[in-house]
């Protein structure tokens, strides 16, 4: 398939996934702050940190209040990772490959965009919860429509690769930021708030119910294990990397455990790390250090994908062709 089309498929899915994650972060945070009367406003800065755009936010807005944070994360056009910006970018990518994707996929992205665009025009947000649910549903609908209406061929695998890398990144970020915010609040340990705060972390990854089924009691270490190492929970980092690898192998035609290019190699290494990771080792090394390392390796995979498939050696061929002429 065309490199440009593969690139758009990949980014289109990353952007949709990013928008969904931001919506979930805000929604979970919003509900958590309603439950803790004191110091609620302190909870908005960490949220901005989770998205990685804290420097831009500081430059534009300074202190994080609820209104400013929501505006920044949802509608701000100056924030390239706001929900609005993400959905717009997803739509532009979809528009450039409209002939390639199914018309059902296009229609879903287009109506998703129109919904956000209309919401951006309304001044007051009366029902934030419903709004965020709508965004998450729109994303899930898109994924479902994609799975049901598009060939599970190369383009579909590029899309899923993008979505899984994005998801792995976002889940690891939320774990990184939230875990350290929550841990030092000794006052809360054993209090009703403890469960609320850790519950909020799980909810930020839509993981609360699935966690309960597997582990029952709220336990910070088990939460880390679930969100990081589960190979069956669809938003866990490990699961995301496993699925990304399946798509990668499908794209290149390599069998699992082998590689044919840099992107495949670096993803494979990351996967084997997670395949054989143990919680005790992670905590010995330090969770933050571990997550930091994982995130930068996810980034490396992204960069390698970009280089291998979207702007490959073809550049050299092109120059050569110009010389030959």
């Amino acid at each position, binding site marked *: 398939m065309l490199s440009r089309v593969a690139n758009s498929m990949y980014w289109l899915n990353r952007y949709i996934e990013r928008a969904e994650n931001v919506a979930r972060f805000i929604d979970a945070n919003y509900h958590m702050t309603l439950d803790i009367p004191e110091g609620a406003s302190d909870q908005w800065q960490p949220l901005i940190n989770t998205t990685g755009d804290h420097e831009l936010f500081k430059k534009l807005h300074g202190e994080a209040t609820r209104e400013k944070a929501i505006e920044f994360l949802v509608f701000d056009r100056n924030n390239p990772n706001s929900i609005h910006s993400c959905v717009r970018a997803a739509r532009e990518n979809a*528009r450039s490959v*409209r*002939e*390639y994707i199914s*018309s059902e996929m296009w229609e879903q992205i287009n109506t998703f965009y129109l919904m956000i665009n209309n919401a951006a025009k309304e001044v007051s947000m009366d029902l934030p919860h419903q709004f965020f649910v709508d965004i998450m549903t729109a994303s899930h609908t898109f994924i479902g429509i994609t799975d049901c209406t598009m060939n599970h061929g190369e383009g579909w695998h590029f899309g899923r690769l993008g979505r899984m890398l994005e998801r792995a990144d976002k889940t690891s970020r939320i774990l990184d930021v939230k875990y350290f915010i929550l841990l030092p609040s000794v006052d809360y340990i054993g209090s009703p708030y403890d469960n609320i705060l850790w519950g909020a972390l799980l909810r930020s990854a839509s993981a609360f119910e699935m966690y309960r089924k597997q582990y029952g009691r709220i336990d910070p270490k088990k939460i880390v294990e679930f969100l990081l190492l589960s190979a069956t929970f669809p938003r866990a980092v490990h699961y995301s990397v496993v699925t990304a690898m399946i798509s990668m192998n499908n794209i290149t035609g390599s069998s699992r455990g082998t590689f044919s290019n840099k992107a495949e190699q670096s993803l494979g290494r990351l996967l084997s790390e997670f395949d054989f990771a143990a919680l005790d080792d992670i905590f010995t090394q330090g969770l933050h250090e571990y997550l930091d390392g994982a995130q930068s390796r996810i980034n490396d995979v992204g960069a390698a994908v970009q280089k291998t498939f979207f702007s490959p050696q073809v550049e050299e061929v092109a120059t050569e062709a*110009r010389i030959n*002429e």
Partner: protein
Amino acid sequence: MRFTGYDTEGFYDEVFDEQGNPRPGADLLIERINALPDKELHRRQKAAEKALLNLGITFNVYGSDAQTEKIFPFDIVPRIVQADEWEVLERGLKQRIKALNAFIDDVYNEQKILKDGIVPSELVLSADGFRKPCIGLKPPGGIWCHITGTDLVRGGDGKYYVLEDNLRCPSGVSYVLENRLIMKRTFPMVFDACSVQPVTDYPSRLLEMLQGLAPQGIRSPNVVVWTPGIYNSAYFEHSFLAQQMGVPLVEGGDLVVNRGEVMMRTTKGLEKVDVIYRRIDDDFMDPKAFRADSMLGVPGLMKAYSKGKVALANAPGTGVADDKAVYAYVPEIIRYYLNEEPILNNVPTYACWRDEDRKYVLENLDKLVVKAVNESGGYGMLVGPHSTAEEQAEFAKRIEANPRTYIAQPTLALSRVPVLLEDHFEGRHVDLRPYILYGKESIYVLPGGLTRVALKKGSLVVNSSQGGGSKDTWVLNADDSSATASSMQQQQEVN
């Protein structure tokens, strides 16, 4: 909502005759619409508009950012073309494109028609669409213009006239197909009752025609559609046609000439391209052959084309024959190459470079439509009866300074169709753009075409960039009309 009180105001109306009775073939439609409960037609009109927006069937307006895509306004009452009327149009269009194609081939090769003095040589060689690098080219099968969209209008006399031949990259066929889809969704019973010729197989016909252009010996040719990109005003159409044909949509950056062949950049390396349906102007295709500053083009493309390594539809250079100055000579061109009388009428055209014609034009600016020969889309036009003395003086100056670039035509009392307004129907002027595919084996004319409506009251300008809208065009099946009428009667009796 009913048609009672609809006034044709002395114009030729496509649906009602002078007595206010439905024309043959339109009676079923009128009957059905009149029978709809109050507000039902509006409800369906709204549903159709919403569907167009959700489907993203939009066009970009030049000079505005990506935020302002607009839907092409759509009127839900279809235009009806009777079978026998269509049969004549179809023959006329085939005749015309055959002759124009022979003309283009001749102009870039022997130039017999110029030597014989039928068309003035300097006029053709100075035409904006004339391309020197095309001299001596022999496209596959001798066909230059594979896809045509000819603009037709009907005058007050009830006759069709050809307004212009669009031989470069005619747009709009995607709206024909989408309009039909929307109509079938919103008006299934009426549609079913009327026995309408289908348009849905256009993409398959287009693909077959394009595949037929592939260099010999290639069993399953790689066909692509080439777009200037997502900000082009017709981008929707480019992606729609690629999607419907199931072929890649490429941009200039996806293509590269390597060892004399045109290739596309894929995730698995370079892949050969055999046929390009290009929706990009000649000038931007190859910076080595045409405009050196083109950022959209593919260096070396023309060389590969001239060596027969890749086929282009339409061939570069076809614009020479849709020059408004050359238009004036099309009847002679038909007689010259085909030895036949033209079936379709040209609009009488005054060519300002002829002294006599220019004199007449300058004296009658208030009665004529003046057109710059190199402009399209309703730009650079003077509509005499609707213009001020100042505008006329301005055009007189322009014509005298540069007579080669202007033609003038009498204002036609364009035919009208009813469009849906708040609480009644009103007549609006229309044109019709049928689409013609010229393949090696045969010529196909899409039954119907794009009916464009000047939505502003009294306006004669139908272009989408100037506030025009569109309607579905229903070409009725031959012989079938009586059978359908009786089957409908039966159906009503059952009901």
